[in-house]
């Protein structure tokens, strides 16, 4: 139990998901975006998981989709096509063009698999966007209900929303501990990665708390990016002499920043609003001041450099990178873009670049 369990799941999510599905005997629902609220899938009686890149070769996916899509989606498709996991439902959300294309591709390649697409707005400002988010989530629930033939259990939703929120706030606390040095990166990312595939109850039971794991030495850095592909990347970065003090990844702090107003009279509505009002959005949403906000957070946490961990072919990341680098530079923080493609760790060249960045810091 404890950290050992969380890190074990973080290192091998697929084995854990398989065991979990067997244990729980519920339909497996896979969410392919941090904007799909897992609590809703829980409330449909699913074993709900979120998915990061788990394989590095995509022979089946390459037969269904061109290779100029990010390896996160290629990996997910590969797993679905290989029927490595007994998935019943794949849930996607509007945001990037690749994820949006997934249900269509699956409708041809795996017509037996149910899909549901959450048509969230790209705008996140003002009442019309919030309203549209609500309409989108209601339509999404309707779609899931139809595909699974099971109703949304409102009691369960209440429970799931609470417990998922608890998980998110504990993860957020881990990451808050990075800046103060009271907590170190490997368990923090391990906790975040494990939460993607564990049942939330089990996660809470295993989570020992966000204290008393002081971080080691190293140059303090900010880590930004979409998906943290694996714990190995974090360990590799640490072994190169980095100490992550601030996070801006979708896997960790961004997703954990979402807060649902649990006392709201209409919980579905409150969940939809929590998606539109997420304090830390991904660059696929229309948030004008994101780079400046990230730079401010990096500075506040005392970062001396920044690593922008991007998936190759991720358009929102690639568009943001130069502006984010400029915003960081403006507050005196040099940065490095590392593009990951079909790999869960760093390449030799990437290790060289990280090391050079550290060696050239004043």
């Amino acid at each position, binding site marked *: 139990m404890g950290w050992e369990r969380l890190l074990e799941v973080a290192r091998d999510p697929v084995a854990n998901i398989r065991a979990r599905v067997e244990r729980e005997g519920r339909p497996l629902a896979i969410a392919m975006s941090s904007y799909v609220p897992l609590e809703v899938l829980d409330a449909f009686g699913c074993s709900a998981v979120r998915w990061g890149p788990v394989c590095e070769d995509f022979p089946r996916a390459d037969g269904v989709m061109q290779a100029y899509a990010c390896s996160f989606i290629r990996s997910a498709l590969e797993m679905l096509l290989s029927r490595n996991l007994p998935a019943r439902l794949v849930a996607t959300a509007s945001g990037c063009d690749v994820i949006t294309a997934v249900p269509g591709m699956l409708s041809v390649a795996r017509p037996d698999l149910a899909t549901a697409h959450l048509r969230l707005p790209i705008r996140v400002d003002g009442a019309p966007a919030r309203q549209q988010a609500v309409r989108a989530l209601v339509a999404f629930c309707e779609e899931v209900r139809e595909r699974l033939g099971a109703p949304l259990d409102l009691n369960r939703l209440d429970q799931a929303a609470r417990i998922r929120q608890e998980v998110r706030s504990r993860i957020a606390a881990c990451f808050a501990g990075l800046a103060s040095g009271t907590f170190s990166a490997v368990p923090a990312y391990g906790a975040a990665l494990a939460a993607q595939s564990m049942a939330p109850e089990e996660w809470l039971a295993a989570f020992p708390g966000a204290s008393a794991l002081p971080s080691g030495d190293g140059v303090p850095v900010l880590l930004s990016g979409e998906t943290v592909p694996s714990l190995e990347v974090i360990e590799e970065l640490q072994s190169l002499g980095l100490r992550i003090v601030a996070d801006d990844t979708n896997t960790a702090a961004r997703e954990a920043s979402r807060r649902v107003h649990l006392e709201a009279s209409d919980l579905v509505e409150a969940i939809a609003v929590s998606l539109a009002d997420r304090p830390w959005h991904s660059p696929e949403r229309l948030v004008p001041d994101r780079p400046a906000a990230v730079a401010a957070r990096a500075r506040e946490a005392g970062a001396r450099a920044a690593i922008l961990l991007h998936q190759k072919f991720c358009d929102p990341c690639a568009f943001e990178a130069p502006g984010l680098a400029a915003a960081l530079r403006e507050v005196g923080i040099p940065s490095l873009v590392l593009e990951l493609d079909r790999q869960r760790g760093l390449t030799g060249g990437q290790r*060289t670049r990280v090391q050079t960045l550290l*060696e050239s810091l004043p």
Partner: protein
Amino acid sequence: MSRRVAGLDIGSTATKCAVVEGGRLVQAVMLPSMPDMVAAAREALRQAGAEALPVVTTGYGRALHEPRLAQVSEITALAAGVGALRPEAATVVDIGGQDSKVVRVQGGKVLDFAMNDRCAAGTGRFLEVMSRVLNIPQDRFDEVSRPEVDPLPISSTCTVFAESEVVGLLSRREPPDRILKGVLTAVCSRVAALGRQVGVAAPVVATGGPARSMAVIRALSEALGMEVLPILPDPQGVTAFGAALICAQRAGA
């Protein structure tokens, strides 16, 4: 007091060892890295008479060799080497086997750098592939790609696409010297693209194996729109030399 120290650059294709004394190069060795990088590293040290000397390792396999005083990235080592050999240089262009880099330097230190991410276009690897397709060994590039030859444009920079483009040109019986010139132009335009990320400032020097070829240097000068000077006679040994200088500094030699 001055004593001997060593720098060991364990690259993806070649392993280089440099021994310095009082800031001067006294011994240089180069061996193929494959099939066994660890053995190559040991052998290079042996041949350079550096087995007992303090050593700083660098290059792709820098973590493989023990014992060592320290390991530094090849970009830091390259900058140190260039700083000693060409102190006036503001930019270094290094065309390596697996990767190419453009480094802005000042006084032997890195100011900024760009390095290709994974794509083989603009690296020695691309030249290697094309040399095979054209059946022109790399040491004959200068002989074939003379200044007056007019290049045939190779529009694709993707190695796979470019290969089929070259095959297409050959099958249309286009002269190989013009194709080769086109290939060099294509590689150098990729390197120039890296350069734009950091901003290339004169004077520019070139290192790495391909920098031995004047045809490559000419193509590079053209792509960057400014004069590029190779660091001769050993453009491939600069990084190992730089590592040795760093070693001297750290060892207090």
